[in-house]
């Protein structure tokens, strides 16, 4: 392999670097921002892997425009990737940023408001041309005014330095320019004492068959790294103070969407069933389908002609005895709702994953929101209760999907899993479970001919038998018309309909028998309890943690089960004088709990396509505490 000899070897990260001061920090928030074609997502991804592999805890938040390639240099073409890394548990990707890597003026302009005072800006000075400044809407060059005075600004000619590093390369000027994100990555690796090894390994794998590109990226990465060491403007590097060692185990970092895909695969294996997923592309849920599509030996993955066909195919597969799922986002869930009524009526197991986005209608496709709770609970005609669960973090998307599958199969019911854009695209470090660590599945394809009735129910779960085509002697018909109790024959009898409506509701209620009791985090004698569901878990915990550190009587609790609710939820809530429910909607859980318990709660609602910041929740809690300190 002759090309191997040409490959640049990157130097070990920490060797021979003692000249500059090292400052230790608990946590750092960094955001890479540039044009949507600048490779910012990849850069952030690499930095995350490198940090996670050093044992840091990590949470990430990609933020990219809904246009695939918005015009270069413009404000709406800016793509960002934010991550927070720390030596102890990281709850969220962070509210405000410590370090901004800005590849052009538009990236600087859009992200500057999030940067902390005295924060670090690393910018590509070459991109600050009159043309780019104009496209970003600057009337004067911010590098020449005092707009950036309150920050530590490091200006580097990243484009030029990238070119210099690749003098004599056979790559085209355009290809050379595409390497500049790795120059920035190399510099940040130096600045934060990261090892370049994981990225170097990744590059070698990725560009195995393209030695020129591999060599160029390695050179540029090293060049950025060396620049930090030699340039006089840098006097300090930063390292993460280690608080707690992670539990022994095998780790990876995982997005919520990948975790959900893996959860479905793991659940089907645990249940001993074929996995069928019928889906239709929709942002921000499509990555689940992408991940699943890679693993055709683990599952039958079907890209249907529309959202309705997607859920229909899943119901057909469930009728046939597969663990069946469909993945979607709000508009897709609307389209599927008639079929969910059928699934409720025929009582077949089904998992529906809704990665919520801003609505109504097309709304904010790439932005996060929690506004499909009402739809999940009640968005169907007729009395049509379904089980509704919500993931609380990217890695919880795995556990909640396994849990949804288990409930669906055990109770013969559709289960809706609510995730959202923030969880689906966000990533965190995940301690990989073994299959044997997952909860047990009782799977129950019915084969006994004796006494078989399609709607004869299990006494504990009220599940009906799952007798699938191909089973001799159990031929029967199901459908959307009301069923006679036990026999499953079509019935229009008035009393029977009432009974069946009640039985379907009771079956869902019985799922509560296995929901764990409520637990709180924070001050056991809290005056204010913050109750959340879904993706607000991390930010609520961060806010409560901060206030508890100050000695304030605050606690939080989180719901993963939204229908049915935990049995002890009401008595749990009664213990607290004041309760706050923050949601990325206009108060949907708040409404449900008031209706269910006749209790009052404070609410905090943010519908801006962005998750809460911890300070927003802290401020609300403080006002509930009467503003005391």
């Amino acid at each position, binding site marked *: 392999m002759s090309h191997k000899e040409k490959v640049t070897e990157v130097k070990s990260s920490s060797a021979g670097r003692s000249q500059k001061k090292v400052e230790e920090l608990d946590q750092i928030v960094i955001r890479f921002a540039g044009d949507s074609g600048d490779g910012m997502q990849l850069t952030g991804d690499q930095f995350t892997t490198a940090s996670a592999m050093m044992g840091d805890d990590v949470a990430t938040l990609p933020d990219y425009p809904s246009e695939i390639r918005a015009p270069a240099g413009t404000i709406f073409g800016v793509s960002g990737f934010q991550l927070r890394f720390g030596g102890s548990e990281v709850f969220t990707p962070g509210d405000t940023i410590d370090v901004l890597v800005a590849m052009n003026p538009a990236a600087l302009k859009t992200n500057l408001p999030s940067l902390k005072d005295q924060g670090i800006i690393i910018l590509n000075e070459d991109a600050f041309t009159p043309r780019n400044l104009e496209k970003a809407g600057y009337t004067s060059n911010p590098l020449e005014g005092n707009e950036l005075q309150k920050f530590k600004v490091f200006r580097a000619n990243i484009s030029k330095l990238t070119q210099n590093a690749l003098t004599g390369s056979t790559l085209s000027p355009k290809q050379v320019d595409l390497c500049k994100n790795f120059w920035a990555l190399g510099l940040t690796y130096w600045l934060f004492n990261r090892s370049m090894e994981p990225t170097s390994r990744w590059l070698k794998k990725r560009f195995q068959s393209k030695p020129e590109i591999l060599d160029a990226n390695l050179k540029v990465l090293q060049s950025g790294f060396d620049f930090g060491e030699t340039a006089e403007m840098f006097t300090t590097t930063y390292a993460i103070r280690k608080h707690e060692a992670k539990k022994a185990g095998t780790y990876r970092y995982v997005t919520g969407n990948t975790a959900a895909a893996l959860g479905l695969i793991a659940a089907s294996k645990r249940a001993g069933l074929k996995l069928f997923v019928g889906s239709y592309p929709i942002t921000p849920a499509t990555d689940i389908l992408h991940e699943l599509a890679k693993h055709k030996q*683990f599952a039958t993955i079907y890209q249907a002609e*529309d959202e309705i*066909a997607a859920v*229909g195919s899943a119901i*057909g597969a469930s009728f046939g005895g597969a663990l069946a799922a469909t993945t979607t986002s709000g508009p897709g869930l609307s389209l599927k709702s008639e079929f969910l009524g059928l699934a409720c009526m025929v009582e077949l197991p089904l998992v529906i994953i809704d990665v919520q986005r801003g609505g109504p209608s097309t709304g904010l496709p790439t932005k996060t929101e929690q506004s499909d709770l009402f739809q999940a609970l009640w968005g169907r005609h007729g009395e049509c209760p379904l089980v509704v669960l919500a993931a609380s973090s990217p890695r919880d998307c795995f556990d909640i999907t396994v849990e949804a599958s288990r409930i669906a199969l055990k109770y013969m019911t559709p289960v809706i899993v609510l995730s959202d854009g923030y969880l689906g695209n966000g990533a965190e470090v995940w301690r990989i479970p073994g299959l044997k660590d997952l909860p047990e599945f009782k799977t129950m394809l019915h084969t006994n001919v004796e006494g078989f009735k399609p709607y004869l129910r299990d006494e504990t779960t009220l599940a009906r038998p799952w007798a699938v085509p191909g089973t001799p002697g159990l031929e029967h*018909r199901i*459908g959307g018309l009301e069923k006679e109790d036990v026999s499953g024959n079509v019935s229009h009898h008035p009393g029977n309909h009432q009974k069946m409506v009640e039985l379907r509701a009771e079956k869902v209620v019985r799922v509560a028998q296995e929901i764990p009791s409520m637990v709180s985090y924070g001050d056991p004698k809290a005056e204010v309890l913050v109750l959340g569901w879904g993706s607000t878990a991390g930010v609520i915990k961060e806010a409560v943690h901060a206030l508890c550190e100050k000695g304030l009587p605050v606690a939080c609790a989180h719901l993963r089960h939204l229908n049915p609710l935990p049995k002890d939820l009401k008595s749990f809530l009664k213990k607290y004088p004041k309760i706050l429910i923050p949601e990325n909607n206009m108060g949907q859980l708040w409404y449900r709990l008031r209706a269910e318990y006749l209790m009052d709660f404070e609410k905090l609602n943010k519908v801006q396509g962005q998750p809460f910041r911890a300070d927003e929740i802290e401020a609300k809690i403080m006002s509930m505490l009467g503003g005391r300190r």
Partner: protein
Amino acid sequence: MNTTGTPTSAGTKLTRKDFLSSIDPRWCAGCGCYGVFKAITSVFPTMNIPREKFAIISGIGCSSRFPYYSNTYGFHTIHGRAPTVAMGLKLARPDLSVWVITGDGDGLSIGGNHFIHLMRRNPDIKVILFNNQIYGLTKGQASPTTAVGTKTKTTPYGSNDIPMQPLAMAIASGATFAARAHDSDNELLTEVMTAAARHKGVAFVEVMMNCVIFNDGAIESITNKATRAENTIRLRQGEPLMFGTDANKGIRMGRDHRPEIVPVGQMAGGASKSDLMVHDITASDSSAAYMLSLLSSPTAFGVFRQVNVPSYEQHYEVSVDPDVDKLLRSGTTWTTGEDGQSRPVEGSKQS
């Protein structure tokens, strides 16, 4: 009719009776559905497939009551969506014989999109479209196949909509098997259903039928003994296209690339048989089948097209039993030991 037959999983011979459920069919007296039901349930026992391997999936409408009357696995789903459920079932369970029962409203109007995609994907699913050119279950509204000018409850001044051509749509969408029959010719129905059942791939059958209540007489011209010889043509593989009383007419390709009806025989201006188009259901090019599907006078019956290509579900066949634990640990992974130190997993691939 051959209703005797084939071994089941239990080793007994199945007859048509084995395929009748305890519920007697309840369509209107004189409804064409009866004849189609009879033909299909007569073909089932001849297929050499155990009864429990049949699954009949329907949507909503008069014809969609079919599954309740057949003692097989059945699923009466929602309006227009039977093809979607059938597709998922077939992909999850390629071992089953899956039949979709639909109508002109169910299959072509609310379910039109699914119909197209089912045809183009070519799963081994049989689709029987009961076409009575009217909405029956909702009591008489114009359907996508209702003839222009027909007065219905929603078109009291006559329908203005150009009717859809189900067979043409199926063929244009890529159906590998397409056929047409009508409710009053049992022999034709049985022949066509048998051919559909044997086809490995999507099989589409349009059954033209009469609705005695809401659209009586709509297909009178093709079923009436006095007129049907002149108004219909029976397609037979490898034979020239001939029809009419005494088979005295034929179809040849005209100079303008349109089918041309010509007298056949010794009379003045008559064409010879060798001038006529010869029916070829196996032609990979579907244009002749498409053209014949649009003929209205005469209307063609029989099998239009039957070509063999791998059916959709075969693309999903997997033989290995994969290791999920290994999958969860794929990509970039690292281990943290009891000492709290992280190190990359040997050989862990970078994703």
